C-alpha cells in the first residue's frame, strides 16, 4: 500500500476516549472512506495533555500539529482546511512541533519543561503496532543486552545509572537486581507491579496504554540479568484498555521472537503472563501481590525473607514498578552516564507525575528529578483553576501527605519530599486550592486506608478506625480539644506497630495536615467553622440571585421547607431551618446554590 504523506492520529487513551475520541475517530474514518488515500488514520496513547482531550495530530514531513478539544465537527474542518487545504487552524492548535522541537501552540508551557524518557513513545506511536515501536528504536536495547552484554554487566549498568524504584520507596533498582541474581534456584520470577492503587494517579495506566512494549522490553532485560524464566504483570482490573493493549503487545513480541524460547538466538528463554487484580489496594504491596497471584487473599507477610530470596511461589523474585521497567531500555541504549546526568545527584533521571485536582492543566508530565513543586504546579500545570489560591499538593496518595504552598520551593526527589513528612509515592500529585478542607482531606484518606486495611495487624485494623471516627466527628463539628493530641498519639502507634507499608504510612495524611494546617483543625474544633467552606455540617447554603431562574426545583426538593420563593422569582434559603443535607445543591440545574 502506498503511504499517504499526511498522517492523522487520534489520542485514544482512556482520557481521550472518555472525552469523545471515539466519535472523532469515527468522523475521520467516514471522511477517509469518502476520500480514499487522502490521509492515513491511526490511533495513539495518552499524549499527556489530558485536559485538552480529545487531541488530534496532523503529521506531515517532520511537522506535527496537535489540535486540542476536537469535536467531530472540528475534525471535519481540520480535514477540509488543513489536510486538504494545507491551512493550519491556528486558534485550535495545542502544540506545534517541527523536527522534534516545540515551536508554538497554546500549550507549549505544559511541554517545554518536560524531559521524556519513560513517555518517549507515548502519544507518538501506535501502541498496538510493534512495528512502530521497533521503528522508534524499540527492542534495540534488548538485542544489545542479550547479544553483547553479560548479565553482570547489565546489572552494573543499571546500578551506575542511579535508577531508583518508581513504585514509591525509591529502592536502588540495580542493587535489587543484584540480590535476586545472587540466589540459585530452579526457577526465578519477574513481576511487574501495575496495580497502581493510589486513588488520583494514572501514570502507569498511561504508560501501559501508550507504550506497552517499553515495559515488556524492560522486563525481558531484567529477566536476563537475574536469570528468570517467567514473568507476571499484575494489572488492576479497572484498566481494561491497558490489559487489552498488553495482551496484543505480548502476542506481537512472541511472534517477533522477543519472548518464548531462544530469544533472538541467544539461548535465553522467557515468557510473560498477565494477572488481573481484583480490587484490593493492599495488593500493591509486593508480598500481598504475590499471595494474590497465587490465588489467595492478598495479605502481606513479614520480610525477611525478601522476595529476592523467597518471593512468588517461594522462589527468588524481582518485583519492580511499571515506570521502573520502562526506564530500562533507554538506559541500556543511551548508557548509564546519560541517565545519571539528568536529575539530582541521589535521585537521577526523570519522574512522571499525574497532575490532577485544581490545576489548570491536568495530565501527565515527565520532568527531571529535582524540579520544584512550584514549577510543576505553576509552570507545567499552568496554575490554579478559576484563579483561586494554591494551598497545597497531596503527594503519595494514602501513604503520603499534604505539602503546603509555602514549601513550594521543595524539589521533588527521594530526599527532599520525605523531609516534609510526605512521600514521593508513585507520582500522583493532586493540587488543592483554598476551597479544599484539609481536615476533610485527612478524613478522606483515612476512610480509604481503613477500608483497605487487610485486617492482619490490630493497630492498622482498629487504630485507623479510631482515627477515622475522630476525624469524622471533627468535620461534623463535634470535635473535642483533646482530639488533635489523640490523633497524633494514635498515628505514632499505628506507624510503629504495623507490619506492612499500608499501616506504617496510613497516618501520614493526618500527621502532615496537623503539622501544616493545625489552625484548620482548631477552627473546626473550637469555632465549629470550616475555613475552606467545605464541610457540609459547618457551612451555610446560599442561592446566587444572578444564577437562580426561579424554577422552584430546590424548594420542591427541600425536605424541611427551608427554601422560599415563587415561580420565576429568585429563591432564598432560611439557614435557621436548613438541615444542611445538600439536596438543593444536587437538584439545581443551574449551579446556583453554593456553600460558605
Amino acid at each position, binding site marked *: 500500500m502506498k503511504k499517504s504523506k499526511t498522517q492523522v492520529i487520534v489520542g485514544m487513551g482512556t482520557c481521550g476516549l472518555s472525552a469523545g475520541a471515539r466519535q472523532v475517530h469515527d468522523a475521520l474514518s467516514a471522511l477517509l472512506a469518502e476520500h480514499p488515500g487522502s490521509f492515513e488514520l491511526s490511533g495513539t496513547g495518552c499524549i499527556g495533555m*489530558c485536559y485538552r482531550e480529545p487531541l488530534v495530530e496532523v503529521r506531515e514531513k517532520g511537522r506535527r500539529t496537535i489540535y486540542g478539544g476536537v469535536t467531530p465537527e472540528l475534525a471535519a474542518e481540520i480535514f477540509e482546511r488543513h489536510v486538504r487545504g494545507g491551512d493550519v487552524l491556528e486558534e485550535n492548535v495545542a502544540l506545534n512541533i517541527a523536527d522534534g522541537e516545540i515551536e508554538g501552540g497554546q500549550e507549549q508551557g505544559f511541554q517545554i519543561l518536560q524531559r521524556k524518557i519513560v513517555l518517549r513513545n507515548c502519544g507518538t506511536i501506535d501502541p498496538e503496532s510493534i512495528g512502530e515501536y521497533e521503528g522508534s528504536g524499540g527492542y534495540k536495547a534488548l538485542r544489545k543486552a542479550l547479544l553483547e552484554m553479560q548479565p553482570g554487566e547489565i546489572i552494573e549498568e543499571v546500578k551506575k545509572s542511579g535508577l531508583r524504584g518508581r513504585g514509591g520507596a525509591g529502592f536502588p533498582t540495580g542493587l535489587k537486581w543484584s540480590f535476586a541474581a545472587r540466589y540459585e534456584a530452579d526457577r526465578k520470577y519477574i513481576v511487574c507491579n501495575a496495580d497502581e492503587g*493510589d486513588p*488520583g494517579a494514572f501514570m502507569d495506566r498511561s504508560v501501559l496504554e501508550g507504550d506497552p512494549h517499553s515495559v515488556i522490553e524492560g522486563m525481558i532485560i531484567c529477566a536476563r540479568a537475574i536469570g528468570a524464566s517467567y514473568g507476571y504483570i499484575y494489572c488492576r482490573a479497572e484498566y481494561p484498555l491497558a490489559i487489552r493493549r498488553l495482551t496484543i503487545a505480548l502476542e506481537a513480541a512472541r511472534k517477533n521472537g522477543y519472548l518464548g524460547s531462544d530469544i533472538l538466538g541467544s539461548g535465553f528463554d522467557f515468557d510473560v503472563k498477565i494477572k488481573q487484580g481484583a480490587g*484490593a489496594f493492599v495488593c500493591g504491596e509486593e508480598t500481598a501481590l504475590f499471595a494474590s497471584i497465587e490465588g489467595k487473599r492478598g495479605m502481606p507477610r513479614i520480610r525477611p525473607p525478601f522476595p529476592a530470596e523467597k518471593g512468588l511461589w517461594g522462589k527468588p523474585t524481582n518485583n519492580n514498578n511499571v515506570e521502573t521497567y520502562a526506564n530500562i531500555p533507554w538506559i541500556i541504549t543511551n548508557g548509564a552516564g546519560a541517565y545519571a546526568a539528568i536529575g539530582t545527584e541521589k535521585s537521577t533521571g526523570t519522574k512522571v507525575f499525574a497532575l490532577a*485536582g485544581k490545576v489548570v492543566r*491536568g495530565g501527565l508530565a515527565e520532568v527531571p528529578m529535582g524540579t520544584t513543586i512550584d514549577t510543576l504546579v505553576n509552570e507545567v500545570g499552568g496554575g490554579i483553576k478559576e484563579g483561586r489560591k494554591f494551598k497545597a499538593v497531596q503527594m503519595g496518595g494514602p501513604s503520603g501527605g499534604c505539602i503546603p504552598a509555602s514549601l513550594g520551593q521543595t524539589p521533588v526527589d527521594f530526599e527532599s519530599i520525605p523531609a516534609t513528612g510526605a512521600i514521593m509515592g508513585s507520582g500522583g500529585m493532586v493540587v488543592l486550592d483554598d476551597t479544599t478542607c484539609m481536615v476533610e482531606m485527612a478524613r478522606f484518606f483515612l476512610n480509604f486506608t481503613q477500608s483497605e486495611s487487610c485486617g492482619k495487624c490490630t493497630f492498622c485494623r482498629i487504630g485507623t478506625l479510631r482515627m477515622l471516627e475522630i476525624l469524622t466527628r471533627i468535620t461534623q463539628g463535634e470535635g473535642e480539644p483533646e482530639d488533635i493530641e489523640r490523633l497524633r498519639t494514635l498515628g505514632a502507634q499505628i506507624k510503629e506497630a504495623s507490619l506492612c507499608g499500608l499501616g506504617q504510612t496510613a497516618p501520614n495524611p493526618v500527621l502532615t495536615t496537623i503539622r501544616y494546617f493545625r489552625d484548620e483543625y482548631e477552627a473546626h474544633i473550637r469555632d465549629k467553622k470550616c475555613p475552606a467552606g467545605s464541610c457540609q455540617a459547618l457551612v451555610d447554603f446560599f442561592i446566587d440571585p444572578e444564577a437562580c431562574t426561579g424554577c422552584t426545583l430546590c424548594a420542591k426538593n427541600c425536605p424541611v421547607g427551608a427554601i422560599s420563593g415563587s415561580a420565576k422569582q429568585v429563591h432564598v434559603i432560611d439557614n435557621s431551618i436548613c438541615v444542611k443535607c445538600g439536596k438543593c445543591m*444536587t437538584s439545581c440545574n443551574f449551579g446556583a446554590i453554593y456553600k460558605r
Partner: protein
Amino acid sequence: MEESFSYRLWRYDGQPGELIPLLQSAQDHFGYIPRRAIRYIAGVTGVPESEVYGVITFYSQFRLQPMGKHVIRACDGTACHVSGSRMIIETIEDELGIEDGGTTEDGLFTLSIVACIGCCSLAPVIMIDEDTHGRLTPSSLRKLLREYRRREKQAAAAAEAGCADRA
C-alpha cells in the same frame, strides 16, 4: 471475554494460582458469583468452599448478588473527591434511589463507589459499564441517567411491539 467459564473449569489442570481467574470468569459469565459456581470451583480445584468464599469477600471486585443491567462506577478518588464527587454520588443516589452497592428495583442500575478510574484530569468522573463520563455536574449527570432510562424504555417498547407483530 476470552474463554467461557465452563471451558475454563474443564481445562483446569491443577495449576496453582487459577482460583482468582476462575472467579473472574464466573463473574463474567453470571454477572456475579452464585452459590453453585462456588461449589463447582471448590469441587474442581479442591480448595475448600470456605476458603473460596474467603477469597471472594477479600476482593472488592467480586459480588455475591446479581448486578443491575448497567453498572455505574462512581469515582471517589482523590482528584474526584476534591472536585465535588460527593455531590455527584448524592445526585445518583437521589435520582435512582439506591446507595453504594445497591440495585434499582427495575434491575437497570447498580451503583458502586470506586477509588480512581484513572481519568483524574476529567474529574469528577463516573463509568457506566465500559463508558467513562467526565466533567460532570449534577444537572448533566441527571440528563445522562435519564437518557439511559429513556433508551431502555424505547428498547423495551420496541421489543414488545416486535412480539405483538409476530403474534
